[in-house]
């Protein structure tokens, strides 16, 4: 017990002395992890889309060959970056590029280190995300695509308005995973001189040999960062799911929509039977949904009135 109190004191002392260094580390770690996760996510999405371009046997050989070529490239990229340690990739790129270009391309100074780190972590995250996105797209029921095609959407429209939003939602847990992994694993970028949170620890203990108190501080900070990130991403997921509840619109939209000069006026579904349909609704609402919805009112709220207004335009 006493030892724990001692540790507390030591930690407080070191924190008081070095907190600017720790905070710089936190800032660098978070910026790198955030941007790299975002960039990696975008790379992953591009790869995922490239990997799921549909083709049929009737397509011309050139098109099929091109798609196969793209898939091969993506595959090599994924296998290579997923299959080697990031710390080695860092060395490869940071020293390899100048080596092969006879120093025409090199990462100099602080900005060089930043650029190299961002590139490496992004590419790495991208390799993992590529597979997640591919899985996310494939997991969307084929019926969604067919539903979109059946109303005349083309491939791009189907992807952007139906498939991608759902795939993105499905892979959010993996995005969160990657973000948290990046917060921790950016620490290997010390190999090329990146000053993240862990690198600060190495610096500080190099001066005062307070290995354990500093490590304890770092542990707490890492936990705080990852836990916050995890909560934040869960919150975002919840937001994407939308409300569990929904508002029933009880106002008589029929009157509003009736003013709309719909193209088939007089043909399918014209005014007849409106009474019946309307009564059915009210019945159903009363029997099934009253219990679940706080919002039951016979007089239209401001929002409903707006709905009606828009409908009438």
């Amino acid at each position, binding site marked *: 017990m006493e030892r724990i109190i001692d540790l507390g004191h030591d930690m407080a002392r070191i924190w008081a002395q070095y907190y600017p260094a720790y905070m710089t580390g936190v800032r660098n770690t978070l910026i790198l992890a955030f941007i790299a996760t975002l960039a990696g996510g975008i790379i992953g999405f591009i790869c995922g889309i490239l990997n799921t371009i549909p083709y*049929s046997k*009737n397509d011309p050989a050139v098109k099929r060959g091109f798609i196969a070529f793209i898939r091969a490239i993506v595959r090599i990229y994924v296998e290579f970056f997923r299959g080697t340690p990031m710390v080695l990739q860092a060395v490869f790129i940071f020293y390899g590029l100048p080596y092969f270009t006879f120093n025409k391309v090199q990462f100099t100074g602080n900005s060089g280190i930043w650029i190299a780190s961002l590139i490496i972590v992004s590419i790495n995250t991208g390799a993992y995300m590529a597979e997640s996105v591919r899985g996310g797209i494939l997991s969307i*029921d084929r*019926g*969604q695509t*067919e*539903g*979109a*095609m*059946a*109303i*005349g*959407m*083309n491939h791009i*429209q189907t992807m952007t*308005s*139906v498939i991608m*939003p*759902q795939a993105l*939602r499905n892979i959010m847990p993996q995005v969160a995973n990657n973000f948290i992994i990046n917060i921790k694993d950016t620490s290997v970028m010390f190999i090329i001189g990146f000053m993240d949170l862990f690198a600060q620890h190495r610096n500080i203990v190099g001066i005062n040999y307070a290995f354990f108190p500093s490590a304890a501080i770092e542990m707490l900070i890492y936990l705080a960062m990852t836990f916050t990130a995890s909560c934040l991403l869960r919150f975002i997921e919840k937001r994407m799911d*939308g409300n569990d509840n*929904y*508002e*029933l*619109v*009880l106002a008589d*939209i*029929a009157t*509003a*929509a*009736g003013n*709309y000069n*719909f*193209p*088939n006026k007089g*043909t*399918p*579904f*014209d005014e*007849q*039977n*409106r009474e019946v*349909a*309307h009564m*059915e*609704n009210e019945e159903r*609402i009363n029997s099934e949904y009253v219990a679940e919805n706080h919002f039951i009112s016979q007089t239209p709220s401001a929002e409903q009135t707006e709905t009606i207004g*828009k*409908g*009438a*335009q």
Partner: protein
Amino acid sequence: MTEPILKINHLSKSFGNHEILRDIDFNVYKGDVTSIIGMSGSGKSTLLRCINLLETPTSGDIIFNGENITSGAMSPTTYRAKVGMVFQSFNLFANMTVLENCMAGQIKVLKKSKDEARACALHYLDQVGMAPYINAKPRQISGGQKQRVAIARALAMSPEVLLFDEPTSALDPEMVGEVLSVMKKLANDGMTMLVVTHEMAFAHDISSKVVFMNKGVICEEGSPYELFGNPKKQETKDFLARFIER
């Protein structure tokens, strides 16, 4: 007689070595309600999917308002926007609300303004009795309600023909009625419809023509009165007998 709205000419479809549809030939005229009945696996869904170009026919032609669709005279997307389809499994967009489901196609494909699309969507949602649920997501409504939204979504595109592939077979029995009554209303209002169904009473009551498919060919076709009352082919008799037994 007037030109048919949809003309299916010697249409065949194979998957690999399996010939699923063989030499299908029939016409759909404006205002027709054609029911397609037949045993499971006889190719009814495949036929509808070919008509909507969700499957590419192996041979034969589909003529829509005098234009040959299969020869690529009209782009598949333009054509599909004019031929609506209602699926057995609804296929509502899970990421959109009921209202957005009915607006998306109008905005993206027909390039209508948001307000216009909204008004049109509301109109048809009201007609199928789903107006109160415009803010709900598909997962929050029942099967029968989903199917009615799907019908509204198809109608919002102002299609010239509507295809239905067993629109009620995924539904609990108590929800079948609400969807059939919407379809009946559509039929009475003059919508041109092509309906694959196992609801014989429904086919009998609303169809102007019934097509009986067996093993990938049209075995017999005729008015519901003829086909149900006085079937000519043995296969038709057997099929109908089996249905009455159940």
